[in-house]
């Protein structure tokens, strides 16, 4: 009896094994490496693992990095960035000039450029796009929809108090004076306008496609979420870039293919890479949300690259001979901010003592896996306007104590110090340990540190906006575009509660310089103004910047030609893959 029942069971197992073989069989070996089944053309296929699906492929309506990454391949902007830098270079505009008071910009457009639907790119198309954005109404005016328009241009043609958008706009009008000349008029001078135009939200789309596929049609549902009814942003994004949209299966993959009608294909390359057509036949973005899964998919060759590698995974990748790590130039800053309206940090001497009491080198060495440098000022060194000769504060506990004693304080001096919990930012991978190290070095420097902490969002950020983070706190920023205005302009041009500058007026001089710099159109003069602002900031000391971190990208070794940009925007046109 026993024998037979065992046979029966064995039969069942055998059946399953058979089924499994049928399912899993069919020529063993590795699956899905891009090399094995590659696209066949000269360039092959590259699979890039994104962290998530894009939201939509209509630049003006998105502010997330994953959307921008794809949009950057399909579209181009009037002005571009020199690869790997934040320096401006011609994009769809070959050249441009401002009038004397900096309120009118004339863009001379590249000729012979076609959109991917075969229509012509010209000055009318440029103005069509700008006017479309300026005339947005209703839920399009919500900051979640048109964040970057509002950062660069402020409000819209019609003001809606419920929208959250500011009143009044920097944009006034756009005029196509001839087929290849577009004149954009602003309501006031703004020199960060040019750098702002490099952002993917200001990509120029085909007016024909925008209209044909109802880019501006949609409704707001009961939850207040805008719901596009057109298919432009999901199925028919149409630009002038080196890749064109092919297909998108949400959660699975987004496929772009080389645009053979790309304007620069057979022409001599101008200064940058945008003058060349794409090397690859196909570029696929595959969403993989989990970090460990992205790394494993890279190791198996299922994907060829991914962004924002976790610091702890870097040694694994470096130890694998088939993989490579690429550094993104630092474009962020982590800082210890001070509330200059609260005693004792309202006293410049105390702030100085804190600056000398912070072991910034120690923190950068210990907690950034060798992927950061000590910050000397509130913007990264790659940006123009960075001054080499600001006052620096090298860690010196004795000097800190000395300053406090000379200023008449009895040691230790008590300060309230805040740090965020439940968060890791590129510039601050581990806030708690940064804080602990700083607290220890401050305790050696004549301070008594009272620790406070709150969850990053919304508590900590809310406290920061309300100026409610004690005397000192950890915070940081990642830049969006290559202009000092996006760093020190954001921090100091207007009074902010986080620094206590709504009550403390020590930074008023800096604010004036920043206002001047924003309106100055001469780059050399602007550079000088920002350098001066940086010097003054580091003397007034509203905070101590401590780290610029270098985010990492990982690729398989057979990928070449990728130039990481400090601002997350880069074309895959120059990338090639060896089969």
């Amino acid at each position: 009896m026993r024998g037979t029942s065992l046979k029966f069971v064995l039969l069942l197992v055998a059946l399953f094994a058979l089924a499994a073989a049928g399912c899993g069989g069919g020529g063993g070996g590795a699956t899905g490496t891009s090399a094995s089944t590659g696209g066949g053309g000269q360039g092959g296929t590259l699979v890039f693992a994104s962290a998530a699906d894009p939201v939509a492929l209509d630049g003006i309506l998105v502010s997330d990095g994953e959307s921008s990454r794809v949009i950057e391949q399909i579209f181009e902007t009037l002005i571009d960035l020199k690869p790997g830098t934040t320096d401006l270079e011609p994009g769809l505009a070959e050249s441009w000039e401002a009038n004397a008071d900096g309120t009118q910009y004339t863009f001379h457009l590249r000729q012979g450029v076609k959109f991917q639907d075969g229509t012509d790119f010209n000055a009318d198309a440029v103005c069509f796009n700008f006017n479309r954005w300026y005339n947005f109404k209703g839920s399009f005016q919500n900051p979640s929809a048109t964040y970057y328009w509002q950062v660069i241009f402020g409000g819209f043609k019609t003001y809606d108090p419920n929208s959250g958008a500011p009143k009044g706009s920097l944009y006034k009008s756009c005029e196509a004076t001839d087929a290849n000349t577009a004149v954009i008029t602003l309501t006031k001078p703004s020199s960060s306008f040019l750098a702002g135009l490099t952002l993917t939200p200001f990509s120029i789309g085909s007016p024909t496609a925008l209209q044909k596929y109802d880019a501006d049609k949609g409704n707001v549902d009961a939850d207040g979420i805008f719901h596009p009814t057109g298919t432009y942003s999901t199925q028919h994004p149409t630009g002038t870039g080196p890749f064109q949209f092919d297909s998108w299966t949400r959660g699975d993959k987004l496929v772009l293919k080389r645009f053979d009608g790309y304007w620069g294909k057979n022409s001599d390359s101008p200064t940058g890479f945008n003058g060349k057509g794409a090397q690859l036949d196909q570029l696929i973005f595959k969403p993989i949300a989990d970090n460990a899964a992205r790394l494993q998919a890279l190791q198996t060759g299922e994907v060829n690259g991914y962004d924002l590698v976790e610091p702890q995974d870097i040694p694994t990748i470096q130890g694998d001979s088939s993989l490579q790590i690429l550094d993104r130039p630092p474009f962020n800053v982590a800082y210890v901010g001070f509330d200059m309206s609260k005693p004792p940090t309202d006293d410049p001497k105390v702030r100085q003592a804190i600056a000398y009491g912070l072991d910034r080198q120690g923190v950068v060495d210990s907690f950034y896996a060798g992927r950061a440098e000590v910050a000397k000022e509130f913007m990264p060194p790659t940006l123009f306007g960075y001054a080499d000769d600001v006052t620096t504060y090298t860690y010196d506990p004795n000097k800190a104590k000395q300053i406090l004693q000379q200023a008449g304080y009895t040691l230790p001096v008590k300060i309230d110090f805040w740090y965020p919990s439940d968060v890791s930012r590129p510039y601050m991978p581990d806030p708690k340990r940064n804080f602990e190290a700083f607290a220890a070095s401050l305790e050696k420097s004549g301070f008594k540190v009272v620790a406070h902490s709150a969850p990053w969002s919304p508590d900590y950020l809310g406290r920061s906006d309300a100026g409610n983070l004690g005397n000192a706190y950890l915070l940081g920023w990642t830049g969006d575009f290559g202009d000092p205005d996006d760093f020190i302009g954001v921090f100091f041009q207007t009074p902010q509660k986080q620094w206590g500058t709504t009550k403390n007026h020590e930074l008023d001089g800096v604010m004036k310089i920043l206002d001047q710099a924003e309106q100055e159109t001469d780059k050399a003069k602007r550079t000088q103004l920002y350098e001066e602002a940086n010097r003054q900031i580091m003397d007034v000391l509203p905070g101590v910047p401590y780290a610029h971190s270098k985010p990492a990208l990982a690729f398989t070794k057979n990928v070449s030609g990728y130039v990481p940009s400090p601002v997350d925007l880069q074309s895959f046109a120059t990338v090639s893959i060896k089969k």
Partner: protein
Amino acid sequence: MLRFVVRRLLLLVPILLGLSILVFFWIRALPGGPASALLGERATPQAVAAIRHQYGLDKPIPVQYWKYLKQVGTFKFGNSSTSRQAVSTEFKQRFPATVELSIAAGLFALVFGIPLGFIAAKRYQGPIDHVSLVVSLVGISTPIFFLALILKYIFAVKLGWLPSVGRISPLIDIPHPTNFYLLDSLLDGNMSAFVDVGKHLVLPAIALGSIPLAIIARITRAAVLDVQNEDYVRTARAKGLPPITVDYRHVLRNAMLPISTIIGLQVGLLLSGAVLTETVFAFPGIGSWLVDAIKARNYPVIQGGVMFVAIIVVFVNLIVDLSYGLLNPKIRLS
């Protein structure tokens, strides 16, 4: 029978109502909101206020709950706040993936779990029984994500036999009329796609099926041990029926009753396990959909998605209950 079904369906009302309250308040108790999830450190107070106003989050809680309840009543859950697509559309796109994965995992659990339990019972207290006990305990106590990482490391990274992420290789293109990729590839007549999709299912199915496998093995063992000593089994053997007939017709069939109950309960387990499995394998189903939604504080997707899943669990359990009648005609549903 009909009354039974109707009564069970009516039970859905209090279940969904209770669940709606739980989900509604739970997501609002999470720190952060859609605004800060969307904007991060760029969330100025004005922008946060505007987004809260736009989403109606500045309205009193009872008003918000009433609005949500109306959605539950009409099965219209609005649009995802990240992709801006209708929640029901996304559900339809993603649900087949989870079904495919759950069926694969369920099959794995059944096809290995029942024989394992059966042999263990037949070799009660023998070495096979002890081994099966250890296997079950390991199966039950190994966290899915850990097992998944180990499986991927061995079979994908080291051996290169199986893929580690997704449902299908990015380079294979097939039309997706049903979104059941196995079916889609068959409809397309593309056998290499079918094999590719099958390979993508193997590791997630093992990871997801390990706990149900262990549970099913244990229950099968207990049930078979019980039934084996029943009078009718002894009688059947005494009559001289071939052992395979006794085992199949009398032992296993009667043991199936408790097993089928457990299988029904496993569906809930499979769906909750899918949350982790899909995330680790970047498998675009309901589980990873809900995880992403929670991370982005995507209220419409969380609220709608959880309801859909709850309804499915209730229906599957109903089907299991109905299947009792088929397995054992003695049970009359009333």
